[in-house]
């Protein structure tokens, strides 16, 4: 098999594929639809799971989270004694350790509306754990008494009816608005972009000392200790050292995020139900891809049979089919991924409930592998019949 022949045979395979434009476009869009279904469902699933760990992921300045040994996921807190902070700070390899407060509270807007909110309290001195993506105002404004920073979408929940920013016309600034939490007044000094939490409650950031007062009684201080490792320190090793020296649970942030995700996966029905949807999306997508492509190959069986009768070798016929499959797969995948990306691009702008859902590259890669396997598999299955040279196929009517 030489290069020239590959070239010419490839040209013939390409013509066979594209000769019937309607059928060809049907194939490509069949694959594209399947790809979109698979990536969209899987990405939403991944996004949903990431939401459960949103508050861990959003704290970008800590390497480790230290907590009560009974804690298994981020949303169920057990307070630590104040002394724990000092014990953690004394562990070698700790650059700094900061208190972190997390509680569920109820906010009342001036017009009386009520809304559950997460109150996150960050270290008074360093503001470690404060949001990193400020939209309005500055993190430093948190130092003012009664100051809070609210997440952008949370503000939309509390003050709906003013969705100006979602439709293009400028929304009235949230800075300067006031909220009441646990009978105490809070003034909004800024807004931040945060990851959407699983429960979609607004997230209110404030200083640790203020946060305690914004939470409803019984007030449990010191939910977590955020730790920054010294440069060059191995995070897992430091976590083990902190655990050994303090008797507390210490986890690198990634691991804590994963354990939170795993908790939701195992303990709530939502991920399981949604997981079934994802699997169905893959099965339906795989069936569509496999079916369209094997029908294409079977429709061309007589043509392949004639080519084979004329002495075209099995390997060449196989390569022709795989080339056709690759062409359909790559085009369909590109279009399907594009449609899925466009879906998330549009929904993330127009629908606050779908914010934080995006096309995860791992999902795109997984879908690519799945599509490749399905196409190669269905090509091999369908072409088997053309590889056995049957005069009945070639000579009969």
């Amino acid at each position, binding site marked *: 098999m*030489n290069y*020239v*022949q590959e*070239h*010419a*045979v490839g*040209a*013939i395979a390409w*013509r*066979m594929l*594209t*000769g*019937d434009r309607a059928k060809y476009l049907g194939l490509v869009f069949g694959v594209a639809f399947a790809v979109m279904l698979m990536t969209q469902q899987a990405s939403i699933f991944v996004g949903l799971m990431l939401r459960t760990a949103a508050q861990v992921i959003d704290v970008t300045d800590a390497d480790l989270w230290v907590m009560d040994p009974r804690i298994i996921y981020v949303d169920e807190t057990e307070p630590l004694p104040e002394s724990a902070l000092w014990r953690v700070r004394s562990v070698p390899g700790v650059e700094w350790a900061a208190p972190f407060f997390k509680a569920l509270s109820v906010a009342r807007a001036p017009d009386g509306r009520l809304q559950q909110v997460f109150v996150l309290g960050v270290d008074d001195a360093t503001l470690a754990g404060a949001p990193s993506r400020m939209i309005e105002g500055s993190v430093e404004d948190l130092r003012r008494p009664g100051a809070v920073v609210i997440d952008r979408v949370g503000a939309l929940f509390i003050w709906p009816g003013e969705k100006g920013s979602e439709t293009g016309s400028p929304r009235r600034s949230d800075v300067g608005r006031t909220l009441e939490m646990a009978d105490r007044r809070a003034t909004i000094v800024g807004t931040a972009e945060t990851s959407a939490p699983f429960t979609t409650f607004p997230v209110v950031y404030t200083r640790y000392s203020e946060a305690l007062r914004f939470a409803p009684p019984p007030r449990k201080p010191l939910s977590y200790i955020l730790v920054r490792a010294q440069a060059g320190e191995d995070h897992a090793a430091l976590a083990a050292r902190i655990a050994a020296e303090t008797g507390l649970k210490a986890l690198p942030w990634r691991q804590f995020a994963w354990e939170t995700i795993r908790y939701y996966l195992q303990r709530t029905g939502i991920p399981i139900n949604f997981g079934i949807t994802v699997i169905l999306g893959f099965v339906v997508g795989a069936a569509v891809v496999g079916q369209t492509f094997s029908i294409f190959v079977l429709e061309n069986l*007589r*043509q392949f*049979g*004639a*080519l*084979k*009768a*004329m*002495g*075209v*070798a*099995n390997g*060449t016929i196989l390569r022709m089919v795989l080339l056709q499959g690759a062409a359909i797969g790559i085009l369909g995948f590109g279009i399907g991924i594009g449609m899925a990306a466009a879906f998330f691009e549009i929904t993330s702008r127009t629908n606050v409930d779908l914010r934080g859902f995006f096309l995860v590259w791992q999902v795109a890669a997984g879908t690519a592998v799945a599509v490749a396997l399905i196409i190669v598999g269905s090509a091999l299955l369908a072409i088997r019949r053309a590889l056995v*040279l049957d*005069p009945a196929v*070639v*000579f*009969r*009517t």
Partner: protein
Amino acid sequence: MSAVVEAPIVQARGVVKDFAAGDESLRVLHGIDLDVRAGELMLVVGPSGCGKTTLISILAGILSATEGEVRVGGRALGGLSARKLAAFRRETVGFIFQQYNLLPSLTAAENAAVPLVARGERLGAAEKKARLVLERLGMGPHAGKQPRQLSGGQMQRVAIARALVHDPAFIVCDEPTAALDAASGRAAMELLRDAARDPHRAVVVVTHDPRIYGFADRLAEMEDGRVTRVLDEPAAIRALSH
């Protein structure tokens, strides 16, 4: 001609073919002896199911004989691997099918060029040669058309061009006129007879169509897996068609 008798292009000796039918095996050919000479057009006729297609499939290297020996162009086909058989078909055989089996999305010239491409030629160069053959067959003006733009007779001419383009020593046709009207069938047979005039080539045509018997140099009659007689007298062949 010298006194030396040229070896026939196709030689079949004692060819037996069994097909597996469930646990049993079904004997379809019962020891066929047949020669097809250079420069000859041979018709193979016989009732449906008597084994005509099976026989030419074996002669053309598409099927292997269960027993017996087949030589084409001096080459024994027995024991050749699938790969070697494919190479044999590429080099030595031209095919014409009842349903033409043209690739619908290729032009007439590209279709006729396929055997050259299978042998490793560039599509462009192969297409040029195919156009010359199409012109010889009166298809020059249609070389750029796709099969669906052609009549049945024109499609069969493209198929004949495809069978000739690589100048094979042996051309097999299964019912080449079955799908054609009388005039187109005659025209196709004239082309095949001309092709058979080449002293290095033999043509075998399987047919049910008595109207074309007159084109035969010789005619082999088959019945129930056997060649019952071979006629070579034009008068006898003509008599059969009435």
